[in-house]
Protein backbone atom coordinates (compact mmCIF):
# COMPACT_ATOMS: atom_id res chain seq x y z
CA UNK A 1 0.00 0.00 0.00
CA UNK A 2 2.76 2.38 1.00
CA UNK A 3 4.87 1.55 -2.01
CA UNK A 4 1.89 1.95 -4.31
CA UNK A 5 1.09 5.39 -2.91
CA UNK A 6 4.75 6.41 -3.11
CA UNK A 7 4.97 5.24 -6.69
CA UNK A 8 1.83 7.14 -7.69
CA UNK A 9 3.06 10.30 -5.98
CA UNK A 10 6.51 10.09 -7.57
CA UNK A 11 5.14 9.10 -10.97
CA UNK A 12 2.92 12.18 -10.96
CA UNK A 13 5.90 14.45 -10.19
CA UNK A 14 8.15 12.78 -12.76
CA UNK A 15 5.54 12.80 -15.54
CA UNK A 16 4.62 16.44 -14.87
CA UNK A 17 8.31 17.39 -14.74
CA UNK A 18 9.25 15.59 -17.93
CA UNK A 19 6.18 17.06 -19.64
CA UNK A 20 7.28 20.55 -18.61
CA UNK A 21 10.80 19.94 -19.89
CA UNK A 22 9.50 18.67 -23.25
CA UNK A 23 7.21 21.69 -23.58
CA UNK A 24 10.02 24.15 -22.87
CA UNK A 25 12.38 22.36 -25.26
CA UNK A 26 9.76 22.53 -28.02
CA UNK A 27 8.99 26.18 -27.26
CA UNK A 28 12.70 27.00 -27.39
CA UNK A 29 12.83 26.12 -31.08
CA UNK A 30 10.36 28.85 -32.01
CA UNK A 31 11.38 31.36 -29.37
CA UNK A 32 13.34 34.50 -30.29
CA UNK A 33 17.04 34.16 -29.52
CA UNK A 34 17.06 36.90 -26.89
CA UNK A 35 14.36 35.03 -24.93
CA UNK A 36 16.24 31.78 -25.39
CA UNK A 37 19.32 33.32 -23.86
CA UNK A 38 17.35 35.02 -21.08
CA UNK A 39 15.68 31.75 -20.05
CA UNK A 40 18.99 29.88 -20.22
CA UNK A 41 20.49 32.29 -17.68
CA UNK A 42 17.30 32.27 -15.62
CA UNK A 43 17.34 28.46 -15.36
CA UNK A 44 21.08 28.33 -14.58
CA UNK A 45 20.76 31.04 -11.91
CA UNK A 46 17.54 29.42 -10.70
CA UNK A 47 19.54 26.33 -9.77
CA UNK A 48 21.70 28.42 -7.43
CA UNK A 49 18.62 30.03 -5.90
CA UNK A 50 17.01 26.60 -5.54
CA UNK A 51 20.00 25.75 -3.34
CA UNK A 52 19.17 28.76 -1.13
CA UNK A 53 15.53 27.67 -1.02
CA UNK A 54 16.74 24.25 0.21
CA UNK A 55 18.67 25.98 2.98
CA UNK A 56 15.73 28.28 3.77
CA UNK A 57 13.58 25.21 4.31
CA UNK A 58 15.92 24.13 7.10
CA UNK A 59 15.89 27.61 8.65
CA UNK A 60 19.11 29.19 7.35
CA UNK A 61 19.97 31.53 4.47
CA UNK A 62 23.32 31.60 2.69
CA UNK A 63 24.61 34.97 1.51
CA UNK A 64 27.56 33.29 -0.16
CA UNK A 65 26.13 31.09 -2.91
CA UNK A 66 28.23 33.12 -5.32
CA UNK A 67 31.06 30.90 -4.10
CA UNK A 68 29.58 27.67 -5.46
CA UNK A 69 28.39 29.49 -8.59
CA UNK A 70 31.97 30.63 -9.26
CA UNK A 71 33.49 27.27 -8.32
CA UNK A 72 31.20 25.45 -10.73
CA UNK A 73 31.89 28.00 -13.45
CA UNK A 74 35.68 27.98 -13.04
CA UNK A 75 35.79 24.17 -12.79
CA UNK A 76 33.81 23.78 -16.02
CA UNK A 77 35.82 26.46 -17.85
CA UNK A 78 39.14 24.99 -16.69
CA UNK A 79 38.07 21.45 -17.60
CA UNK A 80 37.18 22.81 -21.04
CA UNK A 81 40.36 24.85 -21.55
CA UNK A 82 42.99 22.73 -19.80
CA UNK A 83 41.63 19.17 -20.03
CA UNK A 84 39.84 19.40 -23.36
CA UNK A 85 36.49 18.29 -21.95
CA UNK A 86 33.83 19.78 -24.22
CA UNK A 87 30.73 17.71 -23.47
CA UNK A 88 28.16 20.02 -21.91
CA UNK A 89 26.62 17.45 -19.58
CA UNK A 90 30.02 16.30 -18.34
CA UNK A 91 31.11 19.91 -17.76
CA UNK A 92 27.90 20.51 -15.78
CA UNK A 93 28.63 17.52 -13.56
CA UNK A 94 32.25 18.65 -13.12
CA UNK A 95 30.98 22.05 -12.01
CA UNK A 96 28.57 20.51 -9.50
CA UNK A 97 31.11 18.07 -8.11
CA UNK A 98 33.83 20.74 -7.78
CA UNK A 99 31.49 22.94 -5.72
CA UNK A 100 30.38 19.96 -3.64
CA UNK A 101 33.94 18.85 -2.87
CA UNK A 102 35.08 22.38 -2.01
CA UNK A 103 32.10 22.82 0.34
CA UNK A 104 32.53 19.44 2.03
CA UNK A 105 35.08 20.56 4.70
CA UNK A 106 32.88 23.53 5.68
CA UNK A 107 29.51 21.78 5.80
CA UNK A 108 29.53 20.53 9.40
CA UNK A 109 31.26 23.67 10.64
CA UNK A 110 28.79 26.09 9.08
CA UNK A 111 25.81 23.91 10.11
CA UNK A 112 26.55 24.85 13.74
CA UNK A 113 25.52 28.44 13.08
CA UNK A 114 22.13 30.05 12.63
CA UNK A 115 20.67 33.33 11.47
CA UNK A 116 23.03 36.17 10.64
CA UNK A 117 26.08 34.12 11.70
CA UNK A 118 25.35 31.44 9.10
CA UNK A 119 24.73 34.14 6.48
CA UNK A 120 27.93 36.05 7.29
CA UNK A 121 30.10 32.93 7.45
CA UNK A 122 28.88 31.81 4.04
CA UNK A 123 29.42 35.34 2.70
CA UNK A 124 32.95 35.47 4.06
CA UNK A 125 33.83 32.16 2.37
CA UNK A 126 32.62 33.48 -0.98
CA UNK A 127 34.57 36.73 -0.54
CA UNK A 128 37.75 34.81 0.34
CA UNK A 129 37.33 32.93 -2.93
CA UNK A 130 36.71 36.22 -4.75
CA UNK A 131 39.95 37.62 -3.30
CA UNK A 132 41.91 34.56 -4.41
CA UNK A 133 40.40 34.61 -7.92
CA UNK A 134 41.11 38.33 -8.43
CA UNK A 135 44.77 37.82 -7.50
CA UNK A 136 45.25 34.62 -9.53
CA UNK A 137 46.99 35.62 -12.77
CA UNK A 138 46.85 32.03 -13.97
CA UNK A 139 43.03 32.26 -13.87
CA UNK A 140 42.97 35.57 -15.68
CA UNK A 141 42.85 37.79 -12.58
CA UNK A 142 39.99 40.26 -12.44
CA UNK A 143 39.31 39.87 -16.19
CA UNK A 144 38.75 36.12 -16.01
CA UNK A 145 38.96 34.13 -19.24
CA UNK A 146 36.86 32.88 -22.13
CA UNK A 147 35.41 29.47 -22.87
CA UNK A 148 34.56 28.03 -26.29
CA UNK A 149 31.49 26.31 -27.61
CA UNK A 150 30.40 23.04 -26.00
CA UNK A 151 29.49 19.75 -27.62
CA UNK A 152 26.51 17.54 -26.83
CA UNK A 153 26.78 13.76 -27.36
CA UNK A 154 29.95 14.32 -29.38
CA UNK A 155 28.39 16.85 -31.78
CA UNK A 156 29.34 20.50 -31.99
CA UNK A 157 26.33 22.69 -32.85
CA UNK A 158 26.45 25.13 -35.74
CA UNK A 159 26.31 28.90 -35.10
CA UNK A 160 22.56 28.89 -35.67
CA UNK A 161 21.93 26.16 -33.06
CA UNK A 162 24.58 27.08 -30.52
CA UNK A 163 22.25 29.19 -28.38
CA UNK A 164 19.51 26.58 -28.50
CA UNK A 165 21.96 23.83 -27.50
CA UNK A 166 22.87 25.71 -24.33
CA UNK A 167 19.20 26.42 -23.72
CA UNK A 168 18.21 22.76 -24.18
CA UNK A 169 21.00 21.49 -21.94
CA UNK A 170 20.20 24.02 -19.21
CA UNK A 171 16.46 23.35 -19.34
CA UNK A 172 16.98 19.57 -19.28
CA UNK A 173 19.41 19.66 -16.35
CA UNK A 174 17.36 22.22 -14.40
CA UNK A 175 14.18 20.26 -15.04
CA UNK A 176 15.67 16.99 -13.80
CA UNK A 177 17.09 18.72 -10.71
CA UNK A 178 13.69 20.32 -10.12
CA UNK A 179 12.00 16.90 -10.24
CA UNK A 180 14.58 15.49 -7.79
CA UNK A 181 14.14 18.50 -5.51
CA UNK A 182 10.36 18.09 -5.47
CA UNK A 183 10.70 14.40 -4.56
CA UNK A 184 13.13 15.45 -1.80
CA UNK A 185 10.83 18.22 -0.50
CA UNK A 186 8.03 15.64 -0.12
CA UNK A 187 10.23 12.95 1.48
CA UNK A 188 10.59 12.12 5.16
CA UNK A 189 13.98 13.87 5.21
CA UNK A 190 12.52 16.89 3.44
CA UNK A 191 9.71 17.15 6.00
CA UNK A 192 12.13 16.85 8.93
CA UNK A 193 14.35 19.57 7.44
CA UNK A 194 11.27 21.79 7.16
CA UNK A 195 10.33 20.95 10.75
CA UNK A 196 13.82 21.98 11.91
CA UNK A 197 13.11 25.44 10.50
CA UNK A 198 10.28 25.90 13.02
CA UNK A 199 11.40 23.95 16.05
CA UNK A 200 14.86 22.42 16.36
CA UNK A 201 14.29 21.15 19.89
CA UNK A 202 11.41 18.94 18.87
CA UNK A 203 13.34 17.51 15.90
CA UNK A 204 16.28 16.60 18.16
CA UNK A 205 14.00 14.99 20.75
CA UNK A 206 12.35 12.98 17.99
CA UNK A 207 15.77 11.45 17.32
CA UNK A 208 17.06 13.41 14.30
CA UNK A 209 20.12 15.65 14.01
CA UNK A 210 19.34 19.20 12.92
CA UNK A 211 23.02 19.82 12.22
CA UNK A 212 23.13 16.83 9.90
CA UNK A 213 19.97 17.99 8.11
CA UNK A 214 21.42 21.48 7.55
CA UNK A 215 24.85 20.15 6.51
CA UNK A 216 23.18 17.85 3.96
CA UNK A 217 21.14 20.72 2.54
CA UNK A 218 24.28 22.89 2.40
CA UNK A 219 26.05 20.23 0.32
CA UNK A 220 23.06 19.72 -1.96
CA UNK A 221 22.87 23.50 -2.42
CA UNK A 222 26.57 23.50 -3.32
CA UNK A 223 26.08 20.75 -5.90
CA UNK A 224 23.14 22.38 -7.68
CA UNK A 225 24.77 25.84 -7.38
CA UNK A 226 27.95 24.49 -8.97
CA UNK A 227 25.96 23.04 -11.85
CA UNK A 228 24.22 26.39 -12.24
CA UNK A 229 27.61 28.11 -12.44
CA UNK A 230 28.85 25.67 -15.08
CA UNK A 231 25.71 26.11 -17.19
CA UNK A 232 25.89 29.92 -16.92
CA UNK A 233 29.53 29.95 -18.03
CA UNK A 234 28.72 27.75 -21.02
CA UNK A 235 25.98 30.17 -22.06
CA UNK A 236 28.03 33.32 -21.45
CA UNK A 237 31.31 31.93 -22.82
CA UNK A 238 33.19 33.82 -20.14
CA UNK A 239 34.05 33.48 -16.46
CA UNK A 240 35.34 36.13 -14.04
CA UNK A 241 35.74 36.58 -10.26
CA UNK A 242 32.51 38.62 -10.07
CA UNK A 243 30.69 35.29 -10.05
CA UNK A 244 31.78 35.04 -6.40
CA UNK A 245 31.23 38.70 -5.49
CA UNK A 246 28.72 39.55 -2.76
CA UNK A 247 26.34 41.36 -5.12
CA UNK A 248 26.01 38.18 -7.18
CA UNK A 249 25.21 36.22 -4.01
CA UNK A 250 22.71 38.96 -3.12
CA UNK A 251 20.86 38.43 -6.39
CA UNK A 252 20.47 34.73 -5.64
CA UNK A 253 19.07 35.58 -2.21
CA UNK A 254 16.76 38.12 -3.88
CA UNK A 255 15.38 35.37 -6.13
CA UNK A 256 15.02 32.92 -3.23
CA UNK A 257 13.03 35.49 -1.20
CA UNK A 258 10.94 36.24 -4.26
CA UNK A 259 10.25 32.51 -4.65
CA UNK A 260 9.58 31.62 -1.00
CA UNK A 261 10.47 28.22 0.41
CA UNK A 262 7.31 26.32 -0.46
CA UNK A 263 7.83 25.51 -4.10
CA UNK A 264 10.60 24.21 -6.38
CA UNK A 265 9.06 25.72 -9.49
CA UNK A 266 8.90 29.15 -7.83
CA UNK A 267 12.73 29.36 -7.70
CA UNK A 268 12.86 29.16 -11.50
CA UNK A 269 9.84 31.41 -12.05
CA UNK A 270 11.35 34.02 -9.71
CA UNK A 271 14.70 33.75 -11.49
CA UNK A 272 12.98 34.31 -14.84
CA UNK A 273 11.05 37.26 -13.39
CA UNK A 274 14.32 38.81 -12.16
CA UNK A 275 15.94 38.40 -15.58
CA UNK A 276 12.90 39.89 -17.34
CA UNK A 277 12.63 42.83 -14.91
CA UNK A 278 16.39 43.39 -15.18
CA UNK A 279 16.36 43.28 -19.01
CA UNK A 280 13.41 45.61 -19.45
CA UNK A 281 14.44 47.95 -16.65
CA UNK A 282 17.95 48.32 -18.02
CA UNK A 283 16.47 48.96 -21.46
CA UNK A 284 13.97 51.61 -20.40
CA UNK A 285 15.60 52.98 -17.20
CA UNK A 286 19.31 52.29 -17.76
CA UNK A 287 20.43 54.37 -14.77
CA UNK A 288 17.76 53.36 -12.31
CA UNK A 289 17.08 49.70 -13.03
CA UNK A 290 18.20 48.67 -9.51
CA UNK A 291 15.53 51.04 -8.17
CA UNK A 292 12.89 49.30 -10.30
CA UNK A 293 14.14 45.96 -9.03
CA UNK A 294 13.95 47.13 -5.41
CA UNK A 295 10.40 48.43 -5.86
CA UNK A 296 9.41 45.13 -7.41
CA UNK A 297 10.80 43.20 -4.42
CA UNK A 298 9.00 45.55 -2.02
CA UNK A 299 5.74 44.86 -3.84
CA UNK A 300 6.29 41.09 -3.61
CA UNK A 301 7.11 41.26 0.11
CA UNK A 302 4.03 43.43 0.70
CA UNK A 303 1.54 41.37 -1.30
CA UNK A 304 3.12 37.88 -1.31
CA UNK A 305 5.06 37.63 1.96
CA UNK A 306 5.44 33.86 1.53
CA UNK A 307 6.82 34.31 -1.99
CA UNK A 308 5.58 33.67 -5.50
CA UNK A 309 5.28 29.94 -4.74
CA UNK A 310 2.51 30.65 -2.23
CA UNK A 311 0.27 31.60 -5.16
CA UNK A 312 -0.15 28.01 -6.28
CA UNK A 313 0.98 26.07 -3.18
CA UNK A 314 -1.87 27.52 -1.06
CA UNK A 315 -4.36 26.68 -3.81
CA UNK A 316 -2.97 23.14 -4.15
CA UNK A 317 -3.28 22.55 -0.38
CA UNK A 318 -6.86 23.82 -0.39
CA UNK A 319 -7.70 21.35 -3.13
CA UNK A 320 -5.80 18.44 -1.57
CA UNK A 321 -7.81 15.64 0.06
CA UNK A 322 -7.51 15.68 3.83
Amino acid at each position, binding site marked *: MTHTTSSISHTRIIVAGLGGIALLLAAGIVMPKWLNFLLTLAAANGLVSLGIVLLMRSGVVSFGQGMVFALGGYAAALAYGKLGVSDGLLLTLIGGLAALLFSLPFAYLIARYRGIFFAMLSLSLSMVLYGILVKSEVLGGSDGFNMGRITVAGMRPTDAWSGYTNYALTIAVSGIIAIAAKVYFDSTRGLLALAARDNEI*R*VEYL*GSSVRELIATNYLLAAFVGGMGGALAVMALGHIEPNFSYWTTSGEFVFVAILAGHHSVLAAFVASAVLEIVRSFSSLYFPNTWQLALGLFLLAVIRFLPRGIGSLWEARRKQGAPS
Partner: protein
Amino acid sequence: MNLPATEALAISARGIQKRFGAVVAAADIHLDIVHGQKVSLIGSNGAGKTTFVNMLTGFIQPDEGTILLHGENITGLAPRKVARLGVARSFQIPQLYKDLSVLDNMLVAVASQHNNLSFWRPAKNAAAIARAQQLLERFELSQHAQRLVGELPGGVRKLLDIAMALTRQPKVLLLDEPTSGVSGDEKFPMMETVMRALAQEAVTVLFVEHDMDIVERFADRVVAFYSGRIIADDKPAAALAAPDVRRYVTGTLR
Protein backbone atom coordinates in the same frame (compact mmCIF):
# COMPACT_ATOMS: atom_id res chain seq x y z
CA MET B 1 14.44 -4.03 49.95
CA ASN B 2 15.49 -6.38 47.14
CA LEU B 3 16.17 -4.50 43.93
CA PRO B 4 15.73 -6.21 40.55
CA ALA B 5 18.68 -6.85 38.24
CA THR B 6 20.07 -3.75 36.46
CA GLU B 7 18.57 -4.81 33.08
CA ALA B 8 15.07 -5.03 34.58
CA LEU B 9 15.37 -1.44 35.69
CA ALA B 10 14.10 1.00 33.12
CA ILE B 11 16.15 3.79 34.65
CA SER B 12 19.01 3.52 37.08
CA ALA B 13 20.61 6.79 38.20
CA ARG B 14 23.71 6.40 40.35
CA GLY B 15 25.41 9.22 42.25
CA ILE B 16 24.10 12.01 40.01
CA GLN B 17 25.49 15.43 40.87
CA LYS B 18 24.88 18.75 39.14
CA ARG B 19 25.67 22.31 40.19
CA PHE B 20 24.90 25.60 38.45
CA GLY B 21 27.43 27.89 40.12
CA ALA B 22 26.54 27.94 43.81
CA VAL B 23 23.17 26.28 43.24
CA VAL B 24 23.03 22.54 43.84
CA ALA B 25 20.53 21.11 41.35
CA ALA B 26 21.33 17.45 42.02
CA ALA B 27 23.20 16.16 45.06
CA ASP B 28 24.20 12.52 44.89
CA ILE B 29 20.90 11.24 43.50
CA HIS B 30 20.39 7.48 43.45
CA LEU B 31 17.16 6.34 41.84
CA ASP B 32 16.08 3.01 40.36
CA ILE B 33 12.84 2.78 38.41
CA VAL B 34 11.39 -0.61 37.53
CA HIS B 35 10.05 -1.14 34.01
CA GLY B 36 6.37 -0.30 33.69
CA GLN B 37 6.10 1.92 36.76
CA LYS B 38 4.34 5.28 36.70
CA VAL B 39 6.47 7.54 38.82
CA SER B 40 5.63 11.10 39.75
CA LEU B 41 8.44 13.54 40.46
CA ILE B 42 7.29 16.26 42.83
CA GLY B 43 8.94 19.22 44.52
CA SER B 44 8.72 22.97 44.75
CA ASN B 45 10.17 25.19 41.99
CA GLY B 46 13.95 24.85 41.86
CA ALA B 47 13.94 21.51 43.72
CA GLY B 48 15.73 19.74 40.85
CA LYS B 49 12.94 17.77 39.13
CA THR B 50 13.30 19.28 35.68
CA THR B 51 17.09 19.23 35.96
CA PHE B 52 16.83 15.51 36.66
CA VAL B 53 14.55 15.02 33.63
CA ASN B 54 16.91 17.11 31.49
CA MET B 55 19.83 14.94 32.55
CA LEU B 56 17.90 11.76 31.73
CA THR B 57 17.22 13.05 28.21
CA GLY B 58 20.75 14.34 27.59
CA PHE B 59 19.76 18.00 27.43
CA ILE B 60 22.23 18.75 30.21
CA GLN B 61 25.10 16.57 31.41
CA PRO B 62 25.60 15.59 35.06
CA ASP B 63 28.86 16.71 36.70
CA GLU B 64 29.22 13.24 38.19
CA GLY B 65 27.32 9.98 38.20
CA THR B 66 25.90 7.46 35.75
CA ILE B 67 22.50 7.00 34.13
CA LEU B 68 21.57 3.55 32.82
CA LEU B 69 18.64 2.79 30.52
CA HIS B 70 17.79 -0.90 30.79
CA GLY B 71 21.41 -1.49 31.77
CA GLU B 72 22.89 0.63 28.96
CA ASN B 73 24.92 3.68 29.93
CA ILE B 74 23.33 6.80 28.41
CA THR B 75 25.26 9.37 30.44
CA GLY B 76 26.52 12.23 28.29
CA LEU B 77 24.68 11.21 25.12
CA ALA B 78 22.98 13.91 23.02
CA PRO B 79 19.16 14.13 23.20
CA ARG B 80 18.68 12.58 19.75
CA LYS B 81 20.83 9.57 20.70
CA VAL B 82 18.95 9.12 23.97
CA ALA B 83 15.70 9.38 21.98
CA ARG B 84 16.88 6.70 19.57
CA LEU B 85 17.64 4.39 22.50
CA GLY B 86 14.05 4.72 23.73
CA VAL B 87 13.59 7.79 25.92
CA ALA B 88 10.93 10.25 24.77
CA ARG B 89 9.59 13.35 26.43
CA SER B 90 6.90 15.96 26.34
CA PHE B 91 7.49 19.54 27.43
CA GLN B 92 6.07 21.95 29.98
CA ILE B 93 5.51 24.31 27.04
CA PRO B 94 4.50 21.96 24.19
CA GLN B 95 7.09 21.91 21.41
CA LEU B 96 4.89 21.83 18.32
CA TYR B 97 4.82 23.22 14.79
CA LYS B 98 2.23 25.93 15.17
CA ASP B 99 1.88 26.68 11.44
CA LEU B 100 1.14 23.04 10.64
CA SER B 101 -2.06 21.10 11.18
CA VAL B 102 -2.38 18.54 13.97
CA LEU B 103 -2.10 15.71 11.43
CA ASP B 104 1.01 17.24 9.85
CA ASN B 105 2.61 17.57 13.29
CA MET B 106 2.02 13.88 13.81
CA LEU B 107 3.45 13.12 10.37
CA VAL B 108 6.67 14.93 11.33
CA ALA B 109 6.91 12.66 14.36
CA VAL B 110 6.09 9.55 12.35
CA ALA B 111 8.66 10.52 9.68
CA SER B 112 11.38 10.71 12.30
CA GLN B 113 10.74 7.27 13.75
CA HIS B 114 13.06 5.77 11.12
CA ASN B 115 16.67 6.52 12.02
CA ASN B 116 17.66 6.58 8.34
CA LEU B 117 15.68 9.42 6.86
CA SER B 118 14.85 8.86 3.23
CA PHE B 119 15.32 11.24 0.30
CA TRP B 120 12.79 9.21 -1.60
CA ARG B 121 10.02 7.86 0.65
CA PRO B 122 7.16 10.41 0.77
CA ALA B 123 6.45 11.67 4.27
CA LYS B 124 2.73 11.59 3.57
CA ASN B 125 2.45 7.94 2.56
CA ALA B 126 -0.53 5.76 3.43
CA ALA B 127 1.21 3.89 6.25
CA ALA B 128 2.46 7.10 7.88
CA ILE B 129 -0.98 8.72 7.69
CA ALA B 130 -2.59 5.58 9.14
CA ARG B 131 -0.09 5.51 12.03
CA ALA B 132 -0.59 9.24 12.70
CA GLN B 133 -4.38 8.86 12.65
CA GLN B 134 -4.20 5.82 14.94
CA LEU B 135 -2.28 7.82 17.56
CA LEU B 136 -4.58 10.82 17.18
CA GLU B 137 -7.55 8.53 17.74
CA ARG B 138 -5.95 7.00 20.81
CA PHE B 139 -5.45 10.47 22.28
CA GLU B 140 -8.98 11.52 21.23
CA LEU B 141 -7.56 14.14 18.86
CA SER B 142 -9.07 12.92 15.60
CA GLN B 143 -11.62 15.73 15.45
CA HIS B 144 -8.75 18.25 15.55
CA ALA B 145 -6.66 16.57 12.81
CA GLN B 146 -7.07 19.35 10.23
CA ARG B 147 -6.86 22.29 12.63
CA LEU B 148 -3.74 24.43 12.83
CA VAL B 149 -1.87 23.96 16.11
CA GLY B 150 -1.84 27.74 16.64
CA GLU B 151 -5.65 27.63 17.03
CA LEU B 152 -5.77 24.84 19.64
CA PRO B 153 -6.54 25.19 23.36
CA GLY B 154 -3.77 24.39 25.87
CA GLY B 155 -5.03 20.93 26.87
CA VAL B 156 -5.23 19.73 23.26
CA ARG B 157 -1.70 20.98 22.62
CA LYS B 158 -0.47 19.05 25.65
CA LEU B 159 -2.11 15.86 24.36
CA LEU B 160 -0.60 16.35 20.91
CA ASP B 161 2.84 16.92 22.43
CA ILE B 162 2.56 13.61 24.29
CA ALA B 163 1.16 11.78 21.24
CA MET B 164 4.14 12.97 19.18
CA ALA B 165 6.55 11.70 21.82
CA LEU B 166 4.93 8.28 21.63
CA THR B 167 5.49 7.67 17.90
CA ARG B 168 8.84 5.99 18.49
CA GLN B 169 7.27 3.54 20.94
CA PRO B 170 9.70 4.56 23.67
CA LYS B 171 10.74 2.44 26.63
CA VAL B 172 10.62 5.46 28.92
CA LEU B 173 8.33 8.47 28.58
CA LEU B 174 9.02 11.66 30.53
CA LEU B 175 6.14 14.09 30.91
CA ASP B 176 7.17 17.53 32.13
CA GLU B 177 4.20 19.02 33.97
CA PRO B 178 1.55 17.52 31.67
CA THR B 179 -1.31 19.41 33.32
CA SER B 180 0.31 22.82 33.74
CA GLY B 181 -1.60 25.55 31.95
CA VAL B 182 -4.66 23.30 31.72
CA SER B 183 -7.85 24.42 33.48
CA GLY B 184 -8.87 22.65 36.69
CA ASP B 185 -11.88 21.05 35.01
CA GLU B 186 -9.79 19.63 32.18
CA LYS B 187 -6.89 18.23 34.22
CA PHE B 188 -8.43 14.90 35.29
CA PRO B 189 -10.11 14.08 31.95
CA MET B 190 -6.85 14.93 30.19
CA MET B 191 -4.75 12.69 32.43
CA GLU B 192 -7.36 9.92 32.06
CA THR B 193 -6.95 10.18 28.29
CA VAL B 194 -3.16 10.10 28.56
CA MET B 195 -3.12 7.10 30.88
CA ARG B 196 -5.66 5.22 28.74
CA ALA B 197 -3.50 5.85 25.67
CA LEU B 198 -0.35 4.77 27.49
CA ALA B 199 -1.96 1.60 28.83
CA GLN B 200 -1.54 0.09 25.35
CA GLU B 201 2.24 0.64 25.45
CA ALA B 202 4.90 -1.20 27.45
CA VAL B 203 6.30 2.06 28.68
CA THR B 204 7.71 3.38 31.93
CA VAL B 205 6.33 6.83 32.74
CA LEU B 206 7.93 9.60 34.78
CA PHE B 207 5.84 12.71 35.19
CA VAL B 208 6.71 15.95 36.88
CA GLU B 209 3.60 17.30 38.59
CA HIS B 210 2.53 20.01 41.01
CA ASP B 211 -1.09 18.96 41.47
CA MET B 212 -1.09 16.45 44.33
CA ASP B 213 -4.58 15.16 43.50
CA ILE B 214 -3.28 14.17 40.06
CA VAL B 215 -0.20 12.59 41.66
CA GLU B 216 -2.23 10.56 44.13
CA ARG B 217 -4.64 9.40 41.45
CA PHE B 218 -2.24 8.44 38.65
CA ALA B 219 1.18 7.56 40.13
CA ASP B 220 2.33 4.12 41.37
CA ARG B 221 5.22 5.76 43.13
CA VAL B 222 6.22 9.26 44.20
CA VAL B 223 9.74 10.68 44.34
CA ALA B 224 9.96 14.03 46.12
CA PHE B 225 12.83 16.45 45.53
CA TYR B 226 14.04 19.28 47.70
CA SER B 227 17.14 21.36 47.07
CA GLY B 228 18.59 18.80 44.64
CA ARG B 229 18.02 15.86 47.02
CA ILE B 230 15.45 13.09 47.19
CA ILE B 231 13.54 13.54 50.44
CA ALA B 232 10.90 10.84 49.92
CA ASP B 233 10.46 7.83 47.66
CA ASP B 234 7.40 5.69 48.34
CA LYS B 235 3.85 4.87 47.32
CA PRO B 236 1.76 8.04 46.85
CA ALA B 237 -0.14 7.98 50.13
CA ALA B 238 2.97 7.29 52.19
CA ALA B 239 5.18 9.74 50.29
CA LEU B 240 2.65 12.58 50.52
CA ALA B 241 2.25 11.94 54.24
CA ALA B 242 6.00 12.09 54.92
CA PRO B 243 6.83 15.08 57.20
CA ASP B 244 9.56 16.44 54.89
CA VAL B 245 7.19 16.32 51.90
CA ARG B 246 4.45 18.07 53.92
CA ARG B 247 6.96 20.69 55.09
CA TYR B 248 8.91 21.38 51.87
CA VAL B 249 6.62 20.32 49.02
CA THR B 250 2.93 20.43 49.85
CA GLY B 251 3.26 23.06 52.58
CA THR B 252 0.73 21.33 54.83
CA LEU B 253 3.11 21.15 57.81
CA ARG B 254 4.56 24.36 59.24
